[in-house]
């Protein structure tokens, strides 16, 4: 495959973004930008998907030594574009309903997704930083999109300040790593590290800084402080996109750096390498994320903390790489894909529950919705059940897969899996709370009732997400194969 073909999803997406900018500048306001945006994202996802299934060489090619053309990159293209496309559809309903529709929103979504895709393909410290900043700048602006809202601005400023700080740490780490190994490309770093020629102290320090910077983007405890505020302040479609697309890119780059750059047995080892650090992060993230979500009264904030908790499960899968290699990587990939559709379903249903003037935010807003609007409550229930990990949904299979990787890794990892399942049992409580309010409570007398909006866009997004939540749970084979083949391009 030629290099041009390999990066065509990126090029196509940029072209679409530029075109949408033009359309927005020259057309009247009634143009269906959401539709165009979502369609272009889905086309890119489809293109990447076709290439993923088709004849991609198993060994990665590198374009201008900064970007990889491999199945892993294509897999993340699909996940990020699907997440972004569904978020754009949700935005199409949400922004119109709440009178917030402006053209730049969709352009920002596209370019943020572009940054995320670059990040997911980056195999050089320079392109990692470039991708990260491209993505983050878009994300900062998106969080602050509702600029008249104090919450949104607060969330965005917090995110921006902490994000810049994290980026600086990451950059510093990159510099140290260059100093330690003399390489900026991950393959070169890998070689030097594996040969034991790197300056050990510098390399360890650099690795720790890289992990800190990326854990921040992922929202892993204790680097999660920005998550609840940014997620709550942002308009809900942005929250959706942040929790799926941006998070997926963070996972991708973490996998690339840790497995692609420090993938030799000594650097990965359970007692000699980065595995215990990731394990520690994983345990803290799962436990704290679930416990904090328990205490929330706002559903949106609960979903924010739940997204922190899910980052923890992903890290468990990542920590298992040292023993079970590509099995663990593919479990992480499957998890992020399953999480993407499940989370879109949950956030999308939350969007659907509110209408102009009364957005559904707290549990109380959901009270009795199952009786009044069963068609809106039903997808919500499926979404939270998938996040909770109930069979037969995508979420269950994802959880099964990462914990399976952990158990196969053996030793102390088994106990981490035990902690993980217990934490997710805690999670059951707050996810069930959604169902309790939807189906088992009636609204209080004096409270204004949130009325679901009518929107074809949101409905379509929910139907798509719901379809895949069930499909990936009932017949997961095909998606597993994709995840496995994507993982194989990184670890043999």
């Amino acid at each position, binding site marked *: 495959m030629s290099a041009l073909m390999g990066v065509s999803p990126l090029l196509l997406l940029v072209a679409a973004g530029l075109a949408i900018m033009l359309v927005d500048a020259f057309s009247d306001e009634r143009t269906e930008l959401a539709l165009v945006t979502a369609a272009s994202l889905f086309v890119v996802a489809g293109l990447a998907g076709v290439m993923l299934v088709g004849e991609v060489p198993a060994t990665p090619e590198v374009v201008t030594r900064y970007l990889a053309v491999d199945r892993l990159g294509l897999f993340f293209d699909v996940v990020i574009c699907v997440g972004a496309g569904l978020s754009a559809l949700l935005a199409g309903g949400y922004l119109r309903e709440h009178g917030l529709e402006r053209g730049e929103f969709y352009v920002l979504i596209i370019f943020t997704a572009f940054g995320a895709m670059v990040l997911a393909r980056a195999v050089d410290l320079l392109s990692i930083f470039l991708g990260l900043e491209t993505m983050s700048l878009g994300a900062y602006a998106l969080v602050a999109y509702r600029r008249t809202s104090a919450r949104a601005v607060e969330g965005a400023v917090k995110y921006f300040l902490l994000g810049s700080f994290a980026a600086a740490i990451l950059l510093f780490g990159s510099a140290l790593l260059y100093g330690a190994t003399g390489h900026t490309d991950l393959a070169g770093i890998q070689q030097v590290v594996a040969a034991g020629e790197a300056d050990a102290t510098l390399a360890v320090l650099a690795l720790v800084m890289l992990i800190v910077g990326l854990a921040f983007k992922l929202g892993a405890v204790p680097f999660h402080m920005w998550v609840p505020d940014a997620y709550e302040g942002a308009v809900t479609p942005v929250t959706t996109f942040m929790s799926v697309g941006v998070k997926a890119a963070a996972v991708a780059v973490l996998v690339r750096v840790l497995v692609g750059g420090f993938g030799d047995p000594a650097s990965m080892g359970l007692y000699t390498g980065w595995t215990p650090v990731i394990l520690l992060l994983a345990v803290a993230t799962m436990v704290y994320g679930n416990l904090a979500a328990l205490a929330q009264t706002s559903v949106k904030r609960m979903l924010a903390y739940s997204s922190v908790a899910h980052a923890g499960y992903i890290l468990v899968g990542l920590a298992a790489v040292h023993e079970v290699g590509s099995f663990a990587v593919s479990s992480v990939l499957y998890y992020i894909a399953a999480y993407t559709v499940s989370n879109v379903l949950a956030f999308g249903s939350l969007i659907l529950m509110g209408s102009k003037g009364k957005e559904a935010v707290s549990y109380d807003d959901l009270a009795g919705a199952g009786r009044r609007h069963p068609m809106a409550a039903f997808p919500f229930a499926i979404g939270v059940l998938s996040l909770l990990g*109930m*069979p037969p949904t995508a979420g269950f299979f994802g959880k099964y897969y990462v*914990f399976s990787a952990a158990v196969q890794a053996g030793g102390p990892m088994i106990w981490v*899996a035990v902690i993980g399942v*217990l934490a997710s049992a805690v999670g059951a409580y707050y996810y069930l709370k959604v*169902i309790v309010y939807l189906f*088992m409570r009636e609204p209080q007398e004096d409270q204004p009732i949130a009325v679901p909006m009518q929107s074809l866009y949101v409905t379509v997004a929910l139907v798509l997400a719901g379809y895949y939540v069930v499909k990936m749970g009932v017949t997961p084979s095909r998606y597993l194969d994709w995840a*496995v083949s994507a993982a194989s391009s990184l670890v043999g």
Partner: protein
Amino acid sequence: MTTRYLTWLLAIPAISALVVLLLPRGWEKTIKRFSIGAMLVELVISIRLILADYSDAGYHFVEHVAWVESFGISYKVGIDGLSLWLVILTTLLSPIALYASWGSITTRIKEYAFSFLLLELGMLGAFVALDLFLFYVFWELMLVPMYLIIGVWGGKDRVYAAVKFFLYTMVGSLLMLVAILYLVASYEKLAGHYSFDLQELSTLVLPALPQYLLFAAFALAFAIKVPMFPFHTWLPDAHVQAPTGGSVILAAVLLKLGIYGFIRFAMPLFPVASQAIGPVLAGLGVFGIIYGAYAAWVQRDLKKLVAYSSVSHMGFILLGLFAMNRNGISGAILQMINHGISTGALFLLVGVIYDRRHSRLLDDFGGLAKVMPWYTLFFVIITLSSIGLPGTNGFVGEFMILAGSFLSRTSIGFGSSWFIMTLLATTGVIFAAVYMLHAVLRIFWGKVVHTENEALTDLNRREVASLLPLIVMVFWIGLYPKFFLDKMNPAVDAFVTDFTVRYEEGLRTGEPRLVDFDKLTQGFDAPDGLALARPTNEEAQR
């Protein structure tokens, strides 16, 4: 090619649930009839299953299709003498419970029927699954509909009870998931491929320590479901809050899944641990018998009384199960059916009175025998079955369990404790008579104290129709248990033999390894099916 009976058994509730979901809300009558109709079709199919030849111990109606090939997950179903009657129990009780519900459930008919069909799917699936992954899926699948049935249509504190039920079960089953994963990972290391197939996993022999841990994880999941003391606290809450139909299914079928899990999975897979921990579990069962009986005795709420009586009855079943001989295990399986029938019927009867008086407190009744003679008759018959009067089903089951447990006594070490446990369990039979007859006395005999009770109507046609099949079963099992035992005995014998071989093989191991048990079992002759707790010669001859 044979007909895929079991797949139909699973497909019909699944498809019907979807159809119900698509029917318009207003067509309440259609929804009611359709869902009952689907369940009756299920009953007919399941009765066809009885006709197979169960004289050999293997699985029947086996279907095996790969599901997720790369992980060795398959759709593998089949039944044998151990699960046959539990399947029948499910298909019999489901329509009865749903039909009885239509008397009292008036809101959200559509969702109720949907939940019930999904519940039936989950229960049947768990009974017929021969693949651990598939089993887990069904095991979890039935959690959600039951949660909704309690939480949406239940009593005043329904949300609390529903969430408690869900979380208890969830914690247990998640740990079981980790145990399953460990089992499969160990198997993969030896065999070179993944498999969740029970028969393949059965060839794996693990060293003692992992066996103990894995057995503990499985046992926790199953013990919560049974529920075994001290994990029983969710049960009274769930029962009291659940609507009548939900209580019936919960008591009659869901609890059985815990015991079934022990027989099908935990015991054969981890024989060493099971043999060592089994007496402890049986001891907890005995404690549950007495504790449940005492707790039932002091209840003023009739439904709570029946709920605690369940704890007591399930204790018997645990005792029989871990006695590890033919009598005990056959008795345990039969008693599962018995408990399903009599406790299911008791909950129906409690529902009858609650629908009329909106009270279940013993104090609110008295002298009902004069007002509702038919109701009294039914109640007394079921009561007698529940306390194990000869001639009713309860007697047969309890007798076999106690006999089995008594036969376990002579082995050395722990053996002597079986004698004491049997003794204590037998007093439980007396306590059962005390609390049940005490309740009957307070409700039916004496004068009508409360004027509200004077105008109560007797059983209506719906109620008689739902109770009658259960009454028939009470006497059928009570007077001619051979019909039921003949189907299960070969499987039970094979189970005991197999367990013995596994146990001895398990003791020998230091490293995990694969063993072809089919070969070992052939030619092995357990004396009279009595395995580890071998009786003295004299008893064996008898």
